[in-house]
């Protein structure tokens, strides 16, 4: 294998002499059984830069491993790695008698997995998906339910390398999503009670989770008709889907046995009949099983599911779904009739097969992994993989994430304004991973990041995530036509707070700091500053090492010179001096413009 890689190096060099990398079609990557000229990384810096994109931040050992085994083997390892979960950890706390198990515990679990789990790519994908298929504890319905949200996040990570269609279905039917976007207990029209089906989920599944507002070409550019964008749906479509999305309730609902038992629908609880009445609500099965059509299979299903009722004037009972070339059902019209589940499946197929999904979802994922402003060509390459992974399968997320990370625009970008503003959560995770962060109470990572960085997992202020994908900061960024989602939370307040909090972590919250209060008073996560004292006496080595660890080796010469000069100005007589050097360099890097913009 090593010999083959050496042989490949010479092929690569030959290629490089005759053609630019940027011209090699990236679908060559996926030809099975053939080693490929773009196999790399060829330097630790390339490896580190890749790992910034593909994980929550590289440890030195991760960089060394990837440099040694190459991308293909790395992907194989990642696809095979045991999946990190959240719910078992939280259930463990509850079953062990801990009653103080709320969203804080869920977030502790997130950090535990991010810092310790080997399945970094899968977790990065789950985190990215959580910013598209948004549910949030910032909702009266979900704020008291760490278990349901943990189960939701586990569902995302379970589907991270799977099928988009399955993901769409599991997200739609998850009780957290049902409560968050009010599909749960949505019911068919009732003139007597003056009820029309709730349109919330119908809107958001299209606007945010699948196709967006306007027709797109495969490369993500907008289709135009007479110079105007073409909407993907109208209010008829929304009403159509709203009618389909009716009749679903918790899995634990009891099917009525007689007429007029509406209280079964209205008051259906989340506790399974078989479970004891004293069961803690956080353990209730209704919160961790897919929703079910109420009274499925019985006459009661039609009491709540809008089977033969629909918003169209004609034919009655039919529902208008999406229309696009080759659409099923014909003309996008769902005929009257059908069970809740059957109609749901047809509707989700109708959404998932829309040609917009490839470019829409691909672009969002590219923004999370690589760059805020991918070129249309980049989007097109990834969307093509979404449309067909090479083996005739549509929506293969494993192939999509690989295409995103191995594209030349990710590996060998040339645009001046490439990359993205690092998400605050990823800046913190990178610090923690690079510096072997640990908690003095094993497995318990107290982090309340929302206050100081406007980001916390599954805690977005609205279903529109922490920032909009099309946000453009006024000024030069807008003038250049760039997108800058993360700038939307980069406000005066948060800039200051992030700088101050990073200061606290670097200067104060380190392992071995004897001045820390006892752990029962305060349990911050502690980084290992003292680890690098052995080479802190050498300014160049120190700065170069942290350029590798924190910036994928992209630190400019000018910045390096400034940092080296700064360190040289500092005393070097003992461990405490050397620790201060490490801290200064780290703090200066993490709050520098060059670091904050990942390139």
């Amino acid at each position, binding site marked *: 294998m090593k010999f083959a890689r050496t042989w490949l190096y010479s092929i690569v060099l030959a290629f490089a002499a005759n053609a630019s990398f940027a011209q090699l079609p990236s679908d060559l990557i996926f030809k099975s059984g053939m080693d490929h000229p773009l196999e790399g990384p060829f330097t630790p810096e390339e490896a580190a830069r890749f790992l910034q994109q593909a994980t929550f931040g590289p440890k030195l050992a991760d960089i060394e491993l990837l440099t040694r085994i190459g991308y293909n083997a790395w992907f194989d390892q990642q696809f095979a790695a045991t999946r990190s979960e959240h719910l078992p950890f939280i259930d463990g706390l509850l079953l062990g008698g801990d009653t103080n198990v709320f969203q804080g515990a869920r977030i502790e679990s997130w950090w535990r997995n991010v810092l310790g789990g080997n399945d970094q790519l899968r977790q990065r994908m789950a985190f990215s998906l959580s910013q598209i298929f948004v549910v949030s504890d910032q909702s009266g319905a979900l704020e008291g339910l760490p278990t349901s949200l943990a189960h939701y996040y586990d569902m995302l990570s379970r589907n991270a390398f799977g099928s988009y269609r399955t993901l769409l279905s599991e997200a739609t039917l998850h009780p957290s999503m049902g409560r968050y976007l009010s599909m749960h207990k949505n019911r068919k029209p009732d003139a007597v009670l003056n009820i029309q089906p709730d349109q919330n989920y119908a809107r958001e599944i299209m606007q945010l989770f699948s196709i967006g507002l306007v027709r797109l070409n495969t490369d993500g550019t907008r289709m135009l008709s007479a110079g105007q964008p073409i909407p993907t749906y109208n209010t008829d479509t929304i009403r159509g889907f709203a009618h389909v999305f009716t009749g679903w309730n918790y899995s634990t609902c009891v099917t009525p046995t007689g007429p007029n038992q509406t209280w079964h629908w209205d008051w259906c609880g989340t506790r399974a009949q078989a479970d004891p009445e004293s069961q803690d609500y956080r353990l209730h099965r209704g919160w961790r099983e897919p929703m079910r059509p109420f009274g499925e299979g019985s006459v009661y299903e039609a009491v709540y599911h809008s089977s033969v009722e629909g918003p169209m004037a004609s034919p009655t009972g039919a529902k208008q779904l999406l229309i696009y070339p080759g659409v099923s059902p014909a003309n996008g019209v769902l005929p009257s009739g059908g069970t809740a589940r059957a109609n749901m499946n047809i509707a989700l197929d109708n959404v998932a097969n829309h040609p917009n999904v490839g470019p829409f979802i691909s672009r969002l994922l590219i923004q999370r992994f690589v760059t805020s402003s991918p070129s249309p060509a980049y989007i097109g390459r990834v969307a093509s993989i979404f449309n067909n992974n090479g083996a005739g399968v549509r929506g293969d997320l494993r192939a999509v994430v690989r295409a995103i990370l191995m594209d030349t625009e990710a590996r060998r970008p040339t645009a001046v304004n490439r990359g993205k503003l690092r998400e605050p959560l990823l800046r913190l995770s990178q610090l923690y991973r690079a510096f072997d962060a640990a908690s003095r109470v094993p497995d318990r990572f107290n982090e309340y990041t929302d206050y100081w960085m406007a980001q916390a997992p599954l805690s977005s202020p609205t279903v529109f995530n922490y920032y909009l994908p099309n946000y453009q900061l006024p000024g030069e960024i807008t003038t250049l036509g760039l997108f800058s989602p993360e700038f939307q939370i980069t406000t005066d307040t948060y800039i200051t707070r992030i700088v101050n909090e990073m200061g606290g972590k670097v200067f104060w919250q380190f392992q071995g700091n004897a001045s820390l209060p006892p752990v029962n008073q305060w349990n911050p996560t502690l980084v290992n500053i003292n680890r690098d004292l052995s080479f802190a006496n050498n300014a160049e080595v120190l700065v170069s090492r942290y350029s590798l660890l924190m910036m994928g080796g992209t630190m400019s010469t000018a910045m390096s010179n400034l940092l080296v000069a700064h360190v040289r100005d500092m005393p070097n007589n003992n461990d405490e001096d050397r620790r201060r050097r490490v801290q200064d360099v780290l703090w200066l890097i993490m709050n520098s*413009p060059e670091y904050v913009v990942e390139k």
Partner: protein
Amino acid sequence: MSYLKRRELLQRSLMAAAGSTAFGLLPAKLALAQSTLTGGTLLRGSLNYKALVCIYLYGGNDSINMVIPRDTAGYDAYRLRRQGNALPGDASNLAVPLASLLPLNPSQGPVNGGQYGLHPAMTGVKAMFDAGRCAVVANVGTLVRPTTKAMFELPGTLLPPELFSHSDQSVLWQTPASDVSARTGWGGRLADIYRLENPNQVLSMNVSLAGDNVFQSGRLVAPYFMNSQGVEQIDAIQTAQANCMPTGEWNRRRCLTFRALQNLGATATPGHAFERAYVEKTQRSISTAAQVASAIILHPANDVKFRPFWDAFGLTWTANSTNLPALPELARQLLMVARVIASRETLDMRRQLFFAGIGGFDTHDDQNANHPALLRDLSQSVSAFYQVLTTLDAAESVTSFTASDFNRTITNNGDGTDHGWGSHQLVFGARVNGNRIYGRMPSLAPRASNPDEVGYGQIVPTLSTDQYAHTLAKWYGYVQPNVEPIFYNLQYMDNTGGILSIPGPDLGFMQPA
């Protein structure tokens, strides 16, 4: 803390900026230069103080349950749509009980008559309305042209894009026109014009207590974000001081390298647009924070003049307490706005625009459980804010107004409401023609016979957001020019077809400036 004279404060903050290596990087918008935008000569410092406060209700406030018909016919129609056959205690009964309404007796009611009352949670607003300090502006919404129900149903009618979509409608509510989702808002455009009016050229005249928003984004001016806890400054380096002279030697060196790295990001060629933007934001954050902190510390939150906020919610207030009970969110934001307004002379500001906002109004579910508390927060916060403004001698200078994505549907979906359109707004201030309901209240008749209802429960607006906003901007001093007017669709909001309840650019709810 010694009292800082205005001049001294300005000098200190400008020195801080000057001492910073980033002074030369201050963007052009903050430079001391004459603007060509105004087309006239605004003598700096010549105007009296004025401020607008936008109170944004995220999610689409159900104003049908905020201003409620109380005459027999009106209430019956309301009750029929909002309660239907539900029992009083059902979650699907969204009708507010008639006996609980706070009756409004305006000197001028809606043009189509009818008696109205406020939701019982809004005692503060009721008092302001009765005292002539608050007006209701009825059935305002995003419109590209005056629109009827019949027109709505015809293809080819010019309508706002993405009606009933939160993100789009909230943007349109903040922009000067509803035909396209712009990135600049009418408050930002006003700031572009008025920014040079302020002797203080460091602090943005747009201050947001609720983060990013389109309303305050101009072509040249970007808002300064504060939070309800105040202004924070960077520890570890105390960069606000000139020449990086904080107390410790370590801090000074760190400060210098920090600044050098900032300068590198700002000046490297070709550099990176994001790095330049980040530096600009950081630098402005630093110099502004120092300035504002020095000013508002003279008006601490526990000062007796801010006591009305606690009184308005029945919370215990004790003098000199450092541990006052927590206020609801909007109250916290408006308290900070009041502190900044209290500092207007220290900060040497003549024109300011504030943005506050609270969420939770998207009551698809559990409306009865959630909506009343939100209305209470709104009502009591604004009435306390007004009381404080009178103490600050600023009641005539400050006008507050609500805005929201849209109304809710007349119909309900079982325990809540969906996205609507035309909605009722509230304006507050000593220069408001209060105790009036402006415009036309919509019919709440059953859908089959309702001339105002389109879709399934959405009300066609009979006043446009352009008119609403322009009325406020006009009070602020804005005169719409022929060239590059802010409100470019205002020309269409006339009497054509007799559709609008009040035609023209001025709805009349503000007394002459």
